[in-house]
């Protein structure tokens, strides 16, 4: 049916060969693919005359005459076709859809994605699509530079900048800067100069290429491309040091590229450069890079400050992050500063403060949106590279292209080796030759170079098409050959891979301890080194900056505690996701619990008659069943406000309450001879869970702790965490405390009886009590639940 529909659709436009879609392969995935392709081809052909000049990224370049739509003197059209006004969004959506389906398809084919990196496959798809479009007789769309720089590139860079590992980045900053600035300059001049020499030697057609054009070409092609690097390196999982070196270099060389590009472009028409220009170029470089960073930092601080006030409108929190970052990029572009550096600076500056202010859900949203956008952008870029290759005007010249390729490779290797030799004198962790090889091999070129060449005007640069061909060849070579072979080479050379270790609390404690220790030693030696300044910056941050940019109590939270919370939260969610109980993914198969660690208390005089074990069991059972029975859904999900999350907003109160309840708990424990383990963090909880689920159930009976109930049946199960505030309303709390106090002071008589009565009373009290929960639409009471201790500190 679908095929027939498309058939008729296409046949509306005369002059178009009808694609025989019925002869398509029968596999459903391919069918969809063919359909999308067909639609794409079909929509790219008809002429929408009115729209043609207006939309800059129109996918249609072919002048076809059309117009079967309007009819005169007909009865009222029940069903008519009005494609014009949705054309642009329609085509964009089709392209995005194609890109995403491609990505999907690759992972369905079993072994393909492990041999060939995605970027290669996407370029091949682009080639095919471009070929198809050309076959149909149309001009395929080209990767317009404006679209690329304004819409496709920012999401990728923002994603990289927001999640930049700051610690490793700053530790290796010197090395990265050396590679980015000096390395790129070296590459540019080496390639440009040698190419000029080759052009002069070659004679006839090439002799017209002057030095400045060659240098311009050299500077464009020498820049390592962040998109390509990310695409390839993400799949090979090498160790963090190498990753941050190559990736950092690809980000920071943008400033160099921008300056060189503008410098040579400006003066190529004039024909010569003076020393003054060079000097101004250096000043320009400083302005461009530092200016970009400053612009980014300003927007980052603004974003952090804004996020301080978003506690009542959590839903739009992610929007601030995105919009401020994009504005930073655009503002930098207005002044011809380095947009990439602005974006990185913005993301890196705002992240610690924004994350302290926003809700957990917003954090997840930001993460996923960034990943999604950057993924789509990435895919589209590679596909368009393929399509543009088919489309673009080419001028092949064996000498030039081959020379370019060889010089690029040679320049890269020489540059890396030379620079490493110098850098290793200043590094503690020296770069080995294996590292150098990977750094040199990982210098991939990509779409940025292509777009920059595309921006050149043919009037000023008569050899522009040749440049384009050469660049595409280099890009293809680096992405295909180097991209495909880097993975087996990494395995062959046994390069250290990324360690998938989770940070433990011990490591965090000791890392912080080490920081302070090293700062102290530096102070004793009187050496104002790396740690000294880092410590000063931290102190400044803590004293002034955090107070301004972080809302409420979190501004005073030490890093260790923030880390602890984060870890507990993660463990809680993990526990929930794994369904709790039997199969904990990372459960420690140990029976160690708090008892083993706490020094044994000396046996106290028990002036109280002991409870028989059976009695205690009974009490516990009653408490437990009553706890489990009550769950009420209070409010339904409201699009504008998520129900207030007690432990995000009522932070302090909760801490105080928890503290009180802990003390009560302790007192209660004194009465029970069967030692009830005190409420522990989920670390301990997990350990217990793995060993003894029954004990777990018993433990949760202690009603004084706010527990987290998870509704596993709810649609957003892993994220939906309901906080049961056990002592929400004063009623039972004061009663409990009173009884407890009473029990303690009296010390003698039948605390058991009292206890039993009390618990019975309390249970009755509990039922009608409102429990504060964060609710999402609830399909109904669930059969099983997970009780868990609140994942935060007392």
């Amino acid at each position, binding site marked *: 049916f679908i095929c027939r529909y498309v058939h008729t659709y296409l046949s509306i436009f005369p002059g178009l060969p009808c694609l025989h879609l019925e002869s398509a392969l029968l596999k459903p995935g391919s069918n969809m693919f063919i359909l999308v392709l067909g639609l794409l081809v079909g929509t790219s052909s008809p002429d929408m005359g009115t729209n043609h000049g207006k939309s800059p990224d129109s996918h249609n370049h072919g002048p076809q005459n059309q117009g079967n739509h309007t009819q005169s003197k007909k009865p009222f059209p029940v069903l008519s076709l009005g494609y014009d006004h949705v054309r642009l969004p329609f085509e964009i959506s089709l392209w995005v859809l194609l890109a995403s389906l491609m990505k999907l398809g690759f992972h369905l084919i079993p072994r393909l994605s492990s041999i060939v990196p995605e970027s290669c496959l996407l370029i091949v798809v682009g080639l095919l699509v471009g070929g198809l479009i050309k076959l149909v007789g149309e001009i395929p769309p080209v990767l317009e530079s404006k679209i690329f720089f304004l819409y496709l590139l920012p999401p990728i860079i923002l994603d990289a900048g927001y999640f930049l590992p700051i610690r490793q980045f700053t530790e290796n900053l010197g090395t990265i800067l050396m590679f980015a600035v000096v390395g790129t300059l070296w590459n540019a001049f080496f390639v440009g100069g040698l190419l000029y020499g080759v052009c002069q030697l070659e004679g006839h057609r090439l002799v017209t290429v002057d030095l400045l054009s060659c240098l311009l070409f050299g500077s464009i092609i020498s820049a390592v491309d962040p998109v390509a690097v990310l695409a390839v390196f993400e799949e090979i999982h090498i160790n963090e040091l190498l990753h941050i070196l190559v990736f950092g270099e690809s980000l920071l060389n943008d400033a160099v590229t921008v300056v060189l590009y503008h410098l040579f472009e400006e003066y190529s028409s004039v024909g010569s450069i003076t020393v003054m220009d060079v000097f101004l170029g250096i000043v320009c470089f400083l302005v461009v890079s530092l200016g970009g960073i400053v612009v980014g930092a300003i927007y980052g601080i603004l974003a952090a400050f804004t996020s301080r006030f978003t506690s009542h409108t959590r839903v739009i929190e992610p929007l601030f992050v995105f919009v401020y970052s994009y504005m930073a990029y655009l503002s930098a572009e207005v002044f011809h500063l380095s947009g990439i550096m602005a974006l990185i600076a913005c993301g890196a500056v705002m992240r610690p403060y924004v994350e302290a202010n926003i809700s957990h859900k917003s954090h997840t949203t930001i993460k996923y949106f960034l990943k999604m956008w950057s993924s789509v952008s990435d895919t589209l870029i590679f596909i368009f590279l393929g399509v543009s290759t088919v489309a673009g005007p080419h001028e092949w010249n064996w000498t030039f292209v081959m020379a370019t390729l060889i010089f690029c490779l040679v320049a890269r290797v020489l540059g890396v080796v030379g620079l490493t030799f110098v850098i290793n004198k200043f590094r503690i962790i020296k770069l080995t030759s294996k590292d150098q090889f990977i750094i040199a091999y990982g210098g991939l070129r990509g779409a940025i170079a292509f777009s920059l060449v595309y921006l050149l005007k043919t009037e000023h640069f008569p050899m522009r098409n040749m440049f384009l061909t050469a660049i595409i060849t280099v890009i293809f070579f680096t992405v295909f050959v180097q991209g495909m072979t880097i993975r087996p080479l990494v395995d062959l050379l046994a390069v250290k891979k990324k360690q998938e270790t989770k940070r433990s609390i011990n490591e965090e404690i000791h890392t912080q301890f080490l920081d302070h220790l090293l700062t102290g030693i530096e102070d004793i030696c009187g050496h104002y080194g790396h740690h000294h300044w880092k410590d000063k910056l931290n102190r400044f941050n803590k004293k002034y900056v955090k107070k301004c940019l972080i809302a409420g109590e979190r501004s005073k939270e030490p890093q260790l505690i923030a880390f*602890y919370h984060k870890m507990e939260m993660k463990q809680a969610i993990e526990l929930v996701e794994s369904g709790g109980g039997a199969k904990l993914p990372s459960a420690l198969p140990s029976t160690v619990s708090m008892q083993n660690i706490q020094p044994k208390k000396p046996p106290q005089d028990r002036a109280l008659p002991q409870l028989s074990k059976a009695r205690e069991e009974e009490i516990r059972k009653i408490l437990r069943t009553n706890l489990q029975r009550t769950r009420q859904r209070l409010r339904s999900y409201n699009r504008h406000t998520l129900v207030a999350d007690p432990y995000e907003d009522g932070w302090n109160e909760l801490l105080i309450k928890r503290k009180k309840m802990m003390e009560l708990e302790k007192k209660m424990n004194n009465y029970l001879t069967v030692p009830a383990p005190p409420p522990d963090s989920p670390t301990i909880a997990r350990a217990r869970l793995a060993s003894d689920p029954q004990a777990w159930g018993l433990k949760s009976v202690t009603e004084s702790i706010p527990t987290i109930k998870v509704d596993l049946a709810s649609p957003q199960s892993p994220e939906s965490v309901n906080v049961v505030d056990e002592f929400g309303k004063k009623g039972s709390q004061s009663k409990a405390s009173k009884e407890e106090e009473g029990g303690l002071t009296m010390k003698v008589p039948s605390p058991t009886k009292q206890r039993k009565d009390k618990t019975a009373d309390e249970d009755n009290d509990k039922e009608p009590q409102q429990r504060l929960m964060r609710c999402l639409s609830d399909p109904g009471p669930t059969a099983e639940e997970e009780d868990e201790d609140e994942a935060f500190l007392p």
Partner: protein
Amino acid sequence: KLRSPRVSIEQIKNLHNRFTYLTQDEDTLRREHLENISNLALNPIRRQIIEAFFDKRNMGEKEKGCLQEIGFEEFVTVLSFFRPPKPRTADEEMKNVKKEKLRFLFNMHDTDKDGIITLDEYRRVVEELLSSYETIGAETAKAISDAAMLEVASVTVGQMGPDEFYEGITFEQFMQILKDVEIETKMNIHFWNLDTRTMQCGK
């Protein structure tokens, strides 16, 4: 005692200058001299750092105890724990370097010198780390150190019956839990490599 020939004469000279500056031209260094360093006053773990300089265990001797004052030789000995390893160090030797540095850290935590870090000692470590934040109570430090201790026990010992008591972290266990933190590369002071002109000796 300084086993490495890489330590240049000039670096020793600079350190000696610093030593004399700290002791105000006396022969031996005492605790008060170190406490007078103004920058150190802001450091949350300054007491432990100062103690480390007077700890006999760090001087390579088998005995335990504290010295009251140290000479220049001991000063440099302690500082040599922060020497970066040579670039082409064999794996075996790297392990030794790591062990030495971890031993230094361990000694800093083990204040009663019994070879085990007990829960109390660990708690004190965490409390000191958090001491610069006034709003954090002792309960919090306790919770963190409890969780950390439990983790150590779970990872190193594994199975324990409900009645067994976990004494504390031994040195082997300490090495085990910190094996992923690359101590040999992190616990270094740059100045052993850099031009000593950057040291503010005597200023």
